[in-house]
Structures are given as C-alpha cells and as structure tokens.
C-alpha cells in the first residue's frame, strides 16, 4: 500500500464570475437579434460564402467522416470555380471544426450565419451536430445542404436538405433481399446505441426483416467509443443467428471483424455504408471476406458525375481513394451550386425553394433529385467483399469466407 500524500489547500480563488457571465449573455443576445446579412442578399455576389461546419476532430471514427466530406467539398469548389459554373461568382468555403460535439456545432452555426454572414451552410457531419446547429441557421433563413445524414431533418425548419438518402428507408428492402437469398430465418443485430441514426436504421432493418419472417434472436448495443466487442460477439455466438446485421461507425468495423475472427464466430454479416473503406479492408484483412452491405455511393458506378468526381479526387489526393463521405461532400456543394444557378440569387428562401425543386441533378451518387421530405431519391446499391476487394452483389453469387 502506498499511502496518498497529505491533501493540499482546497480554497478556490475568490474572483467573481459575474462580469464574464454578463459578457456571455450579451454575446448570446446579440447573436439572437443581429440581422442575417447573407441570407437576404439579392442577385449574384462576387464571392459566395459557404459555411462548412464539419466534425474534423474529436472521436476519430467520426472525424474520419468529416475530413472525407471536407476533401469532397474542396474538390467540388475547385471544379465550380474553375469551370465558371456560377459565372463571375466564386465559392469561398469557410470551414469550422465542430469536433463531434453538439455545443461546438451550435456555436459554429451561430458564428457562421451571424458573424461570417455566410450565404449558405453546406455541412454538419452526422445527425447530432446537425440537430444542434441547424436551428440557428434556419432562424437566419440560411439554406443548409447536409452531405451525410440520417434522421431529424425537421430541425432545419424547412431550410435543410440532405444529400445522403434516408438510410432507415434505404437499407431495409436490400436487407430483406439479401436475407431471402441466404435463406436466413434468424438475425442478430449490433449497433451504436448513442447514435440516433444507427438506432433508427437498426429499428427499421429489424422491422423489415421481422416482417419478412426473419426472427430476431438478440440485439446488442455498443457505443461509438467502444473498442472491445467480444462480450457482445460472444452473446451473439451463443444465440447462433443465421445473419448478423451491423450498423456502426465506419472506423469501428475492423475491430468488430477481427474480434469476430479471433473468437471463431462464423456468421454472415450484413453491414452498412462505410464498411469497405480502403483503411478498413487493409486493417481487417480476410476477416471481412463475404460481407454484404448496401451503400449509397459506389466507386464501381459510372452513373452521373461519378467518373469525373473520382478523377478529380484522385488528382487532388493521389495518396487517397475517394469514399462515400467525400462523394457526399462533393455532391452537397454541387447541389447547392445548381440551386443557386437555378434561383439566380443567393437569397435564402429562393435558394431553399430551388433546392426543394431539384429533380434532375447529376452527381457522384448518380442521377437523382430531392423528395418531399428534403432528402434525395438515391436507392443505394448492394456490394460484397470478395478476395479483399469490393464487387457488385447479386443473389446468385456465392462466397466462401
């Protein structure tokens, strides 16, 4: 036993915090009442300021998504400006790191719309940041285009539009098709319970599979910071399901697959978007073999502007491969640019209406438009991992892991 040393002084400094509190209140009030110079500007300005609040740090599994979105937006901005798509107007991106923290997201949104007077926001990585930051932008009548999105778009109060399709709607039909092709009767689920999107996705996948006659044997929760999944995987192994449906952050997949392999758990995995990034394939190796997943974006697709996106991305980042997040950032900025061109102005409500009316957009995700819920009509495609590479899935393809 090593005894702790005697305690030090516990007296707190006696300075008053009231001046600081008053300053904070004054700043908050000024943020509420200040006009929004960016949103009511008519015509096309020389510089179109686009705020991009993204999770660029914080939990690494989320920061990886934010940095991907940032790269895609930068590629799109360069294309838009160099091609003169918006005439003499140039897009200027104002990035803000929201650090995977709701408070930072809210603060960044207030700063961008009030202090920086951006014309639009293209950003917010994942739903929690969006839910925290969108109300401030919507109050200022600033249109918002969200690259990656899951649930809760109503927080944008009619000014928010998501590029990613409604994932709780996109996955289930494909899951049912995959399960039927495998002849699965039972399913286990593993998901991030602290992520509202993953929760909504899992609920929808489970409802659809149960409706299709696939019984649920266990539902296992983890969090976005979990790194040891062995307890949940062992529990799943004990229930012996035919399929394991996983909805977690992309950065969590390698550990899940490797720990599944260590424990010799042999179950067909149906994963979600982001499972097959280059890093995941490199880290998880053979343990991901035969995994099937539905994705909104595919490098294999030559629809829309996808070939152009891939070429531009690889030119800008020779050491990296494009991924779903970069594609979403790319399409989000291009989608906004199209709406501005159609509206002929950067004025908030006009751009919002143009965003809502877009039905013929061509982007990295293919050709699509916006539905009445403010989300795109992308249906997704099913892929599988075989021989360490990603390829199209079909019911008649066999795979031995």
């Amino acid at each position, binding site marked *: *036993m*090593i*005894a*702790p*040393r*005697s*305690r*030090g*002084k*516990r007296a*707190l400094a006696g300075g008053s915090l009231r001046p600081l509190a008053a300053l904070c209140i004054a700043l908050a009030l000024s943020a509420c009442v200040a006009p929004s110079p960016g949103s009511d500007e008519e015509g096309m300005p020389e510089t179109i300021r686009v705020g991009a609040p993204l999770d*660029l*740090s*914080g*939990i*690494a*599994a989320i*920061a*990886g998504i*934010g*940095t991907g979105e940032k790269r895609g937006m930068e590629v799109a901005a360069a294309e838009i400006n160099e091609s003169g798509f918006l005439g003499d107007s140039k897009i200027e991106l104002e990035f803000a790191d929201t650090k995977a923290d709701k408070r930072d997201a809210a603060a960044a949104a207030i700063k961008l719309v009030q202090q920086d007077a951006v014309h639009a926001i293209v950003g917010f990585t994942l739903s929690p940041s969006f839910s925290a930051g969108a109300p401030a932008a919507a109050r200022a009548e600033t249109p918002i285009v969200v690259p990656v999105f899951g649930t809760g778009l109503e927080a944008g109060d009619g000014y928010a539009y998501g590029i990613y399709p409604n994932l709780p709607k996109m996955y289930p039909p494909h899951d049912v098709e995959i399960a039927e092709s495998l002849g699965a009767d039972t399913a286990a689920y593993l998901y991030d*319970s602290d992520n509202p999107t993953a929760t909504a996705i899992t609920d929808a996948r489970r409802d659809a599979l149960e409706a299709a006659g696939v019984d649920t044997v266990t*539902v*296992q*929760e*983890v*969090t976005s*910071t979990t*790194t*040891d999944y*062995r*307890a*949940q995987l*062992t*529990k799943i192994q004990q229930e012996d399901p035919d399929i394991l449906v996983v909805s977690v952050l992309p*950065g969590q997949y*390698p*550990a899940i697959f*490797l*720990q599944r*392999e*260590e*424990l*010799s758990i042999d179950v067909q995995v149906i994963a979600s978007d982001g499972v097959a990034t280059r*890093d995941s394939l*490199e*880290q*998880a190796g053979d343990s991901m073999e035969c995994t099937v997943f539905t994705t909104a974006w595919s490098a294999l697709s030559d629809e829309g502007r996808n070939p152009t996106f891939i070429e531009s991305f690889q030119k800008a980042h020779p050491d990296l491969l494009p991924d779903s997040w970069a594609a979403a950032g790319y399409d989000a900025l291009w989608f906004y640019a199209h709406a501005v061109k159609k509206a002929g102005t950067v004025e908030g409500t006009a751009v919002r209406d143009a965003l809502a009316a877009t039905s013929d957009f061509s982007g990295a995700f293919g050709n699509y438009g916006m539905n009445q819920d403010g989300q795109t009509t992308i249906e997704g495609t099913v892929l599988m991992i075989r021989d360490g590479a990603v390829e199209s899935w079909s019911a008649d393809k066999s795979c031995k892991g």
Partner: protein
Amino acid sequence: MQQLINGVALGGTFALLGVGLTLIWGVMGVLTFAQAQVLTWGGFGTLVAWELGASVWVAFGAGVLTGAVVCVLVEVTVIGPLRRRGGSEFSFVAATMGVSVLLGFFLEWRTHAQTLTFPREGFPTGSMRIGALTLSELQVAIIVITILVSAALMATLRWTRFGRDVRAVAESREVASLLGVSPRATYWVVSAIAGALAAIAGIFQGVSNANISYSSGDHLLMIAFAVAVVGGIGSVGGAVVGGLAIGIVQVFAVAYVSSAFQQAAAFLAILIVLVLRPQGLFGREETVRV
C-alpha cells in the same frame, strides 16, 4: 466461462492504466489526466518503430519506452516545477488536463485527425480451442502480461530497496530526503513505470483494433480513475483487482442483463463499493487531525 475470459482480458487493460494512475497518485499526490494520452503515445511509439522497419519486439519495446519517456517528461517539465512552486491539487489537475490536450493536439495535427492502421503481424492474434472454449491469443497475452507485470511491481515495491524508497517518498518527501532518498529520482522512476504500463495497454488496444488514432485512449480515462478509486487509491494490488472486477462486471452485464447496461453496470458497481467501503477495496482509512 467464455464471458469470464472476455471480462478478465478487458479488465486487464483497465488494470494496466489504473495501476499507473494509482502509482502516480500514491507516490506523487497528483491526479493526472494525461495518462490516457500516454497510453495513446505508447501505441504510436510502436507504430512509428514498426514503420521504420523494427521487428515486433523492438517495436513493442519502443512503444513502452515512448510511454515511459512521455510520462517522465510530463513530470520533469510540468508536475515537478509546479510541485516546487507549491501548486495545489487543483493546479496539478488543470496542468495535466492541459498536457493531455497538447499531447492529443500534436497527434491530431500529425495524423490529420485520421485513424491509422496498427500492425498486427508478429503479435499473438490467432485463437486456440480448449474444449468448448475459444481463447483469443491476444486475450491470453493481455491477461498473462497484466498478472506478471502487476506481480513484479508489487514484489518490487514490497521487497526491494527501491520499493522502500518509493514508500518512504510516498509517506513524506522531507523525511525521505533526510534518509538519503532522492524524491526527484523516485518521481522519475515512478513516472516511467506508470507510463510504460499505460503504453502496454495502448499497444494491446492498437493490436486488438488494428488501428490507432489520436483519441484512442480517451474513453479509458474515466474507467481508469474508477479502477484506481474502487481498488483503493494508492494501492497497486487494489487497482489490479479493481480493473479486473470492472471488466468482469461490464462483460457480465452484457451476458446476463443487457448490452445497454454495460457502462452503467460498471459505475453502479463502483458506487456500491464506495458506499459500503469509501476507501475502496484495498484502501486505507485516513485519519484527519484537526
């Protein structure tokens, strides 16, 4: 049985970090918030050595050395000067929080906030079957190393001259100095040991996940504090038992209650222990003289 092994292995990682924390508190009287980053830096030390072409054992040693050096540097450049200027407990807490942020920021900057691939080749990553049990070689390695390292540390503190010096400094720095023991050298060695233990945990975590990032260790800090407190702050054996117990409680919560209660179950168990035994499982009651 399978879940028991899962729990002990999970608890082994908690214990390694918790032992370092309790050692620093017990000897130096410092509640350090930098230890999770030391864990991460240890993992990065191994990664860098591996990328430079080192063998797995050299890379492992480099990671352990990195953790030790970082922890000693924190003692030399921040905690030591603060102690000499009569810093309070709160100033140590604030200072080590600042160190943690800076260490994390450096890694974040160098890695562009990306998750990097951690090497697994050469590490025990296969599995073995004993009857109906499937044992992960990595889990076995974590359990064995945790037990060996903790036993060696406890034996050193109890039966060697260095151990007596450490206990003397922990009891009273002034009296230890009068007896010819150098508190400063003791602090350095204790810091190195705590840093090395955290680094071992960081390396195992990297191997387990096949990746590492600047924030890899952050989520373990709260658990490590809990381990140190439930074991009895300042007690190395207590931290080991506390770590293993929390790991087992977390895993059993998944196995027999619900995965939704994994985190809550651990902290509920900690609350129960502290209510029944405020000094922790192996802690010593303090008498305060007025």
